């Protein structure tokens, strides 16, 4: 309530020191820094923006086609097109400083050194409240194995970054691993303030007319409602293992109910990616929907439902989970 008697529940969330006015942020790569969307979305009614991932050098990205629609989802292979950290500071810096909303800068790189360099250039940018480390990137020093696929590699990046800045770092993980909890734990031990779950699933589609992959890069990342069950499972697994670590959940969220599902699974906040493309106002609607959901139950904050999924009395591990 506090000062918002008419609205009922407050949407503000605190993630162990980082706060957002609503628990609904824009996901990296799906909102740029917010500038383009400002004309159609009232940015002051969303929780914040996670920027498109920034790399050290300007990156031209992958050849088209860069996207393919799939059942209830889409594949993308943009190749992290961005003007590099200097170009980013120049083009987006002033906007970020003046936007008056919390901005999380997403950083990507091909080596620990690149992540570190970008961190150094970003850490003092006004308006930035946190860094998201997009470690679902290939590591050129490890035969292009994706950082987030190996707890050790992931920890190395997070460790290096966290030594360079006091900004909280959220490690963004991929679900394409055998044990996401192990990667999450390694990141937290290395200094991650929180975790962003999940990045896209690696997928592929082929045009049966031309026999060509539908993506110029052959494979790409699957996002949208199709992946939501996988994302909710990842958030749940990690939240069970690390209940005190802030988790920002994402993957296929497009309605208030979807967002509530992530909060119940253990997320402290959520991000919305693909849904912005077809419904630019969706983050505001989700926020208001969460408020109504809380009001209807006499609750005062999104934190009240965090991790509150009611599990059966006994959940035994050995059961066959599929089929």
């Amino acid at each position, binding site marked *: 309530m506090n000062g918002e008697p008419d609205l009922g529940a407050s949407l503000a969330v605190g993630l162990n020191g980082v706060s957002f006015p609503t628990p609904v942020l824009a996901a990296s790569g799906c909102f740029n820094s917010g500038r383009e969307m400002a004309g159609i979305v009232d940015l002051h009614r969303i929780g914040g923006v996670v920027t498109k991932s920034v790399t050290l050098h300007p990156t031209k990205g992958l050849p*088209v*086609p860069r996207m393919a*629609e799939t059942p209830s989802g889409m594949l993308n292979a943009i190749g992290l097109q961005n003007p590099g950290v200097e170009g980013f500071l120049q083009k987006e810096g002033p906007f970020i400083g003046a936007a008056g909303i919390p901005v999380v800068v997403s950083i990507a790189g091909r080596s620990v050194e690149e992540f570190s360099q970008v961190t150094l250039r970003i850490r003092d940018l006004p308006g930035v409240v946190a860094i998201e480390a997009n470690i679902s990137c290939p590591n050129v020093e490890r035969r292009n194995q994706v950082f987030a696929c190996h707890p050790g590699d992931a920890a190395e990046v997070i460790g290096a970054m966290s030594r360079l800045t006091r900004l909280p770092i959220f490690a963004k993980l991929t679900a394409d691993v055998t044990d996401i909890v192990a990667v999450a734990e390694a990141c937290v031990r290395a200094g991650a303030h929180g975790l962003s779950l999940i990045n896209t699933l690696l997928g592929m589609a082929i045009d049966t007319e031309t026999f060509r992959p539908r993506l*110029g890069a052959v494979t790409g990342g699957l996002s949208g409602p199709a992946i939501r069950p996988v994302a909710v499972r990842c958030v749940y697994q990690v939240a069970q293992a690390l209940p005190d670590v802030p988790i920002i959940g994402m993957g296929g969220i497009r309605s208030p109910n979807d967002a509530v599902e992530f909060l119940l699974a253990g997320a402290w906040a959520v991000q919305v990616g693909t849904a912005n493309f077809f419904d630019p106002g969706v983050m505001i609607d989700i926020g208001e929907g969460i408020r109504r959901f809380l009001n209807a139950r006499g609750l005062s904050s999104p934190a009240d439902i965090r991790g509150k999924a009611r599990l059966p009395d006994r959940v035994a591990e050995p059961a066959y989970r599929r089929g």
Partner: protein
Amino acid sequence: MIRTRCEVLSNRRTGAYHSLTLVAPDIADRAKPGQFVQIAVPEGRETLLRRPFSIHQASRRGGWAGTLEIVLDARGRGTAWLAEARTHDVLDVIGPLGRGFSYAADLGSCLLVGGGYGGAPLFFLAEELRARNKLVGMILGARDHERVFKPIEGKRLADTMVITTEDGTMGERGRVTDVLDATLARTGAQVVYACGPNAMLRAVAERCAVRGIPCQVAVEELMACGLGVCWTCAVPVVGRDGRGWWNMRACVEGPVFNGSRIWWDRWLGERPAEPASSAPEPERIHRPEAAEVRP
């Protein structure tokens, strides 16, 4: 850019296409030729993304004031659904989007080249050009006569009109590029505006480049957002000096580009998937000596 729920005023056949008139005064007010709209498919379908369509007409005056017309070719799931739209249905539309065609004060004679439904935005453009007292020549090409977009109206609107069909069922047999040189010579056009399949745009742009005539092309590339935030709609554009290149967003920096600045080989070629930074950069690609119309 505006998001609005528009009523469908009518849905009529135009040859092989469907022509949808929407009540969208705010979008119609601001629309410029070459811009487009993004139309949402209904919730609950497995097709999530909006579909982009060029603006065929934006009426600001008269009986149709406040309406917007788009033309669609029903090919996939989204367009098939839209082709079924009925009067009074309501659509969720965002627009006007992108940068449209631009006009240079000193270029008085224009040639508009449209392929298939690519003719649609050229009608809107022709009207704007005529309002600026330009001479408007038009070439409309298509596979067959069913796909030549509004030939009768086109003839009324343009000062000169050439029609081509690949099967010879209307106008001259062949492609727009087969008649391009002759038409350029005959009309003395100083600038070319083109919309149609990307391969046609390339051919037109390359011919114009050879002749040193500025050429603006309205391209099509897959668009996840249409709002400038996802970078799916990349078109490789070469620097003004012919050196260096960058992927521009068709949805905000386009869909209209200077045809001589597009690196066609990279864009429409074999599309190798490699780290962009190691891609060979064009030493210098041909570009018109004529004054640049727009980057």
